């Protein structure tokens, strides 16, 4: 009996150790990623909510450039308002698209590694082939911008046009399409890039940073509308 008890405890300890190791390793690795993320290029985007007029040229261009099927979208402009009395009425526009988080909650939960962080550009991407459609990333994204592409059946979202416009050496489709130049795209690691210059000169904010997401989409807050508590 004593020997059996010892064996039982050994088995229990071995498996507890195994489970703890695997999960511990995972957590340690997710912390270590912070350093690994440090690459020479990190693309970021600024949405100036003062310049935005809510014309939807960006979302139309995005759909066309990335072949996004009807019924789903990688980019939407959400409108709030109107604020104030006619004729001094204003709307507020916010961009709803992938925030390109450095904390990358979607990448952390993906069981197959289909959601990944591209080390050479800092862009969070989806490997369509690896994705099995478990929806875990869609639930894990605090910005709720992920969706299942009805054609590929894989998770899909904005990737700063990594596979389309960036490959052609152009700017993302939304940036090129914007008639009021409300969008600025560039490399955060390049101290002379336009994004860095704008971010240094203009007060800006990011959405839901309290969740540890460290997004790379920056916003310049709208001056119009009412003050919200």
């Amino acid at each position, binding site marked *: 009996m004593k*020997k*059996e*008890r*010892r*064996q*039982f*405890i*050994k*088995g*229990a*300890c*071995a*498996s*507890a150790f*195994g*489970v703890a190791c*695997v*999960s511990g*390793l*995972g*957590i340690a*690795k*997710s912390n270590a990623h912070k350093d690994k993320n440090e690459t020479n290029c990190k693309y970021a985007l600024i949405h100036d909510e003062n310049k935005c007029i809510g014309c939807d040229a960006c979302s139309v261009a995005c759909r066309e450039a990335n072949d996004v099927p009807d019924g789903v979208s990688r980019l939407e402009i959400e409108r709030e308002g109107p604020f104030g009395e006619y004729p001094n009425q204003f709307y507020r526009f916010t961009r709803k698209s992938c925030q390109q988080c450095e904390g990358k*909650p979607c*990448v*952390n*939960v*993906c*069981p*197959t*590694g*289909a959601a990944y962080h591209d080390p050479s550009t800092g862009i969070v991407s989806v490997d369509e082939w*690896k*994705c*099995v*459609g*478990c*929806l*875990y990333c*869609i*639930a*894990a*994204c*605090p910005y*709720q911008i992920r969706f*299942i592409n009805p054609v590929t*059946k*894989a998770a899909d979202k904005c990737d700063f046009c990594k596979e389309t416009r960036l490959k052609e050496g152009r700017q993302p489709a939304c940036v090129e399409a914007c008639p009021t130049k409300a969008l600025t795209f560039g490399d955060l690691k390049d101290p002379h890039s336009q994004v860095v210059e704008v971010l240094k000169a203009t007060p800006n904010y990011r959405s*839901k940073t309290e*969740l*540890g997401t460290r997004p790379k989409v920056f916003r310049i807050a709208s001056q119009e509308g009412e003050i919200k508590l």
Partner: protein
Amino acid sequence: MSPFHFDSLVWHWPIAIYLFLAGISAGAICFAVLLKHFKLGKNAYKSSFVRAACLIAPLAVFAGLGILVIDLTKPFDFWKILVFYNPTSVMSIGVAVLLIYQVALFAWLACLFKEPILKWCNNRWPVVDKVLNAFTKWEATITGLLVILALGLGAYTGFLLSALTTFPMLNNPVLPLLFLISGISSGAAGTLLGGVLMKGNPDGKEVHFIHNIEIPLILLELALLFTFFVGLILTGGQSQAAALNAIGEGFWGWIFWGGVVVVGLAMPLAFNLFMTASAKRKFSYVAITASCSLFGVLLLRNFILYTGQMTVA
């Protein structure tokens, strides 16, 4: 807001059923192990209750995995989850635990049913004898592995949801414990219900043994449920909004107070206390108590899954 359709809803009821089945499998096998080691010994395989638990454990896990695979948008690509692993993903770790759990489960079942298996084989395949003897030699180790893996599986069903920072109600440190304990109590209920349906004696020593464990389990579950919601309310902000929205007035509020608390916890607790005090247990008492408990756990999984996804951080 419709209780089953809203914008922020990602995971639907099949996931709740999967979480329920994984929990009941883990719980049932824990009780089979406990019954064998503390009450029945070598003859455990003759007990209807142990047999019921040994049927529930593998069948529930297979059914759960089946539901999970069908629920994927690409069901035929499910093998990619088994080939590619991501150590930061709770789901990936869970799949690994599930796989090893099933191996340990079948090894343990082979030890338990060694005698009838050998009798049935009748020395036709000497390999079977050899394998079973090797298993028996390592039985204590296998049991230890199995128990920890079962507890891991039960807790995993909670960690799977608590990893989601999007939803403040799910992103809660108490959730894995709550799901583990309610999974174990559903395993107890499943074992009792299956046992009496398989002509087990409703006043047998197995029933007394399980009921004695069930009472503290229910009390613990109530305490965890209390901590879960009080913790959310005291956190404030969206956590508080999520908790009040869930247990306040409305469809899910009724499910929680009527289904989870009264039918799933208070009634089984009252029945159990009554049965401990009164002399003899009858088939109907045991079956009804177990059914209430199972129903409550199934409702709890659905309640947490749906209301948890209603409020976004």
